[in-house]
């Protein structure tokens, strides 16, 4: 009989699940990790709900880093940010493989293994999404000088992109708001950044913008229009590289 561990849909949730599943000593073949989402329940399965524990998660991630290297750590973190039902189990299998191999650092290269390949695919997917978001995010200056940006990415990339902006806009106060997941990253001038629930931010959208905001937005729209060459017009190519789903949040496509 298979025992299914239901984990929370977050990096910490999945890593806690990995810890609990391993710790249950049922044998790797007899356990399975799943996300806590409504779905079909299988017969002849025992379901256990995993209670997210930051300490357990930290332990697992530390072991992965030590035994399997930075690449594996990154792969696990990025894959966990994706929306895919199979990710929890794939991450578990990758970690099992890495910790049972003589050299765990080679586990991420075993692309013949379906779980490793899936983790790699998911890593690529959220990496690409994060990379896109680094460019496509648009800040607006509020009355009080705070920079505010909202986005709706497919993967939970907020914690992945926040360090980039913390470095870039070190001397600014800024907020990045993930509208779909109701999460926000907040950064204070010269300090660090932290993740928070975004219920406090619902009113920000009605708040006034600073005096120069509209002017800069207009300048940017004009620039984007004039920089394109009419003779080479290629909306298909543009849409490939900049899908429509990003555009509602981007200044140059607002009207």
């Amino acid at each position, binding site marked *: 009989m298979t025992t299914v561990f239901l984990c929370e849909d977050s990096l910490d949730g999945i890593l806690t699940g990995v810890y609990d599943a391993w710790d249950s000593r049922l044998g790797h073949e007899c356990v399975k990790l799943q996300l806590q989402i409504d779905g079909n329940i299988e017969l002849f399965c025992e379901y256990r709900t995993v209670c997210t524990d930051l300490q357990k998660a930290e332990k697992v991630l530390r072991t992965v880093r030590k035994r399997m290297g930075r690449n594996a750590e990154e792969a696990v973190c990025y894959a966990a940010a994706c929306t895919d039902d199979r990710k929890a189990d794939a991450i578990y299998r990758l970690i099992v493989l890495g910790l049972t191999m003589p050299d765990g650092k080679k586990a991420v290269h075993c692309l013949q293994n379906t779980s490793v390949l899936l983790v790699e695919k998911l890593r690529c997917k959220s990496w690409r999404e994060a990379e896109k978001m680094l460019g496509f*995010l*648009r*800040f607006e200056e509020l009355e009080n000088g705070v920079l505010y940006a909202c986005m709706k990415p497919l993967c939970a990339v907020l914690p992945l992109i926040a360090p980039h902006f913390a*470095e*870039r806009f070190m001397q*600014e106060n800024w907020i990045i708001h993930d509208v779909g997941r109701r999460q926000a990253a907040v950064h204070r001038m010269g300090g660090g950044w932290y993740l928070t629930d975004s219920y406090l931010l619902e009113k920000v959208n009605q708040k006034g913008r600073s005096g120069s905001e509209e002017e800069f937005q207009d300048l940017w729209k004009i620039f*984007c229009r*004039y920089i394109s060459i009419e003779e*080479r017009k290629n909306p298909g190519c543009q849409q490939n590289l900049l899908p429509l789903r990003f555009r509602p949040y981007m200044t140059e496509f607002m009207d």
Partner: protein
Amino acid sequence: MLRTRIPEQLPVMEKLKILSDAAKYDVACTSSGTSRGNNGKGIGNCTDAGICHSFAADGRCISLLKILFTNECIFNCRYCLNRSSNDIPRATFTPDEICSLVMGFYRRNYIEGLFLSSGILNTPDYTMELMYQTLYKLRTQYHFGGYVHVKAIPGADPVLIEKTGYLADRMSVNLELPTAEGLRRLAPAKTREKILMPMRQVQNRMEENREELILYRNAPRFVPAGQSTQMIIGATPDSDFQILSVAESLYKKFELKRVFYSAFVNVNEDSELPALPGGPPLLREHRLYQADWLLRFYGFSAEELLSEDRPNFNMIFDPKCDWALRHLEYFPVEINSAPYEMILRVPGIGVKSARRIIKARRQGSLDFTDLKKMGVVLKRALYFITCRGRSMYPIRIEEDYIARNLLYTKENLPPQLQSGATYRQLSLFDDGMLLSAGEQPQAFPVDV
């Protein structure tokens, strides 16, 4: 001269319209090649891979605020929109206007940095001096740490170019046209020597700077992201082989990071320029970029891809496929044992999948299904590879056979190439096809 003088106090909005419109024919909009943290005082950093912030309606990336300092120009290059004999609105930014634009855009995450080019105002020295002042203000007064790409003006004082290079990340001098002869015809004020001189200077200074940096880690960095150049394709009758050879020698002798190709867009009515009824030669530009990648990342040389006898690229097959079809003696390649360099030469396998193959085959042998999952384009690759000694299904290693099969999976080609070149299933009721073959419409023979 027909030039209308525009008053200096034009609003910034108007200037931006004029000067971004004038800068759009410059190709380079990359922000890659340098990695730098925030300096702690100001704003900005650079990432090695570069970041695209938007895409314009022509599908080109917008990464940098690409503007001219001025579109006034003393030269009269025939292909250029800003040539002195054109009657167009002219404008000139002030250094402060550029700085405030860059800072305003950068804070809102619109751009990765600045791309500053310019027409020649008064003299090359005078223009270069103004551009230097702009960068100096941006870096010291506004503490801007983002990416800056600046054009070196041919003919400007080497001291000015050197000073500017310490403030910029990337410098470039436009080669404009692939051959000296074309330059003489279309841009009489510029010569090949004048263009190559600053290029050589930047190269030498970069080399010295590398040694300084080994000795003193914190020595100021000179053009850390390297230099690039661009040439116009299709304005002169140069062949692809000439263009690619020029690019190859630029990579080898001048250590350029990138050579950009820009399909010629006819903006001036001029008897010396070709008329392009079919629009700019975009497919030719595309083929050149593909070949450029083969030079830089795939270990090909220009002579392998083209020769004096075959001076132009095949428009139907990409350069790599074309090479493979003409060199079937190297194929098939055994995926589980071939060296990396050879795997890289298989059509349908790129740098990424070649690396994956090398890493994965150490852990166990690979089969076609594994390759498929790793991102190899099997419909192209299957004619050139074997896995564990067998090919995917029985194929003939023959040029005609492979070419015919590859054509079904070809990329999007312009319509005039799509017809004619391919084989199609004959349909009895397809009148249009019979007509296009040059035959008279005729009654269907009854006895068939």
